[in-house]
């Protein structure tokens, strides 16, 4: 069987952090369990009934004890809460820049991975050691969940919205990808592998694949195919906002709010344009594309619009 561990391999920057927190909880848990077991055993044996007529003295309670065994566990729990919250916020907040962005679409029952450079994979993900990787997760049908035990991270993949999943791989190797939200017949076969490679090998892999169009190029084709170019580029009457340098910046809306133009905003602007109108423009001008564009071309479109923001 080889060496058995209760921990899966540690392949992300946070895996050790999560394991440390887990270790703390194990310590407290095992400690508390042993404490209770000890006292129960002790009392059960020490005070075993010797005489059927035994009538022990009544001890009704002790306020100091009640306070002690309420407050002390609560304080320990506060540590768990604070530590867990801090780590969660860190693990669920991707870095704002310098991330390697990859796009993952889940559908019954496979993972479709698109790289900005145009590479595509099914049930396989390749990432380099030492770089922050940000996955944008989309679903074409039901709720799935993208789970890499070796990274200690999972996130549900929810149809109708984008979810973000970020990590920094630390150790090369091949690790499981599992779907972790029941999604129908082949849920347990919606699995794959993430291959973490040293940076130079990763570059080789990237350029070694079939040379094709990048996601942005494909997105530009989608942009033309659906007529977006007619309004957003060619139109001289100012019916619609320009898309240059929009992505990643704040946008002022007509109702006074300011929102960040991230992937989710661009997606919503395409599928449900009337939800947020840019200041100075009007509703009911842009057609509603809900149900007209599949998830993969939508992601390509978004990568194209991203590319219009010069960096």
């Amino acid at each position, binding site marked *: 069987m080889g060496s058995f561990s209760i921990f899966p391999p540690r392949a992300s920057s946070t895996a050790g952090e999560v394991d440390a927190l887990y270790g703390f909880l194990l310590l407290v848990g095992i400690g508390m369990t042993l404490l209770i077991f000890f006292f129960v055993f002790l009392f059960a044996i020490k005070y075993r009934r010797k005489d059927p007529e035994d009538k022990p003295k009544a001890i009704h309670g002790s306020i100091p004890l009640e306070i002690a065994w309420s407050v002390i566990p609560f304080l320990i729990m506060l540590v768990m809460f604070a530590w867990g919250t801090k780590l969660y916020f860190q693990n669920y907040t991707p870095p704002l820049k310098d991330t390697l962005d990859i796009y993952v679409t889940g559908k019954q029952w496979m993972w479709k991975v698109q790289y900005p450079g145009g590479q595509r994979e099914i049930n396989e993900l390749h990432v380099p050691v030492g770089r922050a990787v940000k996955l944008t997760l989309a679903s074409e049908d039901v709720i799935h969940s993208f789970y890499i035990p070796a990274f200690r991270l999972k996130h549900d993949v929810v149809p109708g919205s984008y979810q973000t999943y970020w990590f920094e791989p630390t150790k090369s190797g091949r690790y499981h990808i599992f779907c972790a939200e029941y999604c129908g017949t082949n849920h347990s076969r919606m699995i794959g592998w993430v291959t973490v490679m040293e940076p130079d090998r990763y570059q080789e892999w990237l350029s070694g694949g079939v040379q094709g169009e990048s996601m942005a190029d494909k997105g530009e084709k989608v942009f033309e195919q659906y007529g977006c170019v007619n309004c957003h580029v060619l139109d001289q009457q100012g019916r619609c906002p320009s898309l240059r340098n929009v992505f990643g910046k704040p946008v002022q809306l007509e109702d006074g709010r300011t929102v960040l133009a991230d992937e989710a905003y661009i997606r919503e602007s395409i599928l449900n344009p*009337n939800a947020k109108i840019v200041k100075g423009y009007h509703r009911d001008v842009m057609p*509603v594309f809900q149900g007209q564009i599949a998830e993969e071309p939508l992601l390509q479109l978004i990568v194209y619009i991203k590319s219009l923001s010069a960096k």
Partner: protein
Amino acid sequence: MIAQPELKHHFDDAGQQLESSTLGMWIFLATEIMFFGGMFCSYTIYRSAFPEAFASTSHFMNVTAGALNTGVLICSSLTMALAVRAAQIGQKKALIWLLILTLTLGCVFLGIKGMEYHEKWVEHHVPGPSFHYEEAQYAQNAEILFFLYFAMTGVHAVHMIVGVGLLITLIIMASRNRFSAAWYTPVDMIGLYWHFVDIVWIFLFPLLYLIGHTK
């Protein structure tokens, strides 16, 4: 013949029995609040997500029918309260007539509701394969609103129908001299139920019919 308080064997006295019935009915009404609450919650969430679509649907609601129904139910609550009062002072004839009046008003409500549902069916506003909405850009979200409309008013109507059945039972019991000033608990309890069903409608009406009618 004067009816005696009907003391069930497991109660010690009439006071305990009445206290139990009253507490039981209030708890039941609390469960009903939670039951309708889930739908009100869903409505609130979708309305705040799609305000214009929801406002546009209210233009297709028959506000006249809804307002009429509101008036009908409020009147029926009045007649019900008067019926409870009549029972309290042992006036059998007044009790029966007021119950009949309440029942009639309840049936009027259901009739108007049925007419509205038919209207919706003809207009293709019933969610499902035959749904079609005039303002195309709101169609999807409008279908959700109409879904909630039928779910909420439908569940409400089911409660009204049950209420009508309960009123018929009360009328039969009253005409058989089962009630007296000493014991009229079922009238009291069903009165509470009826008022509750009325109050639910008071919330449904503005939320479903009146949004968007501010201009």
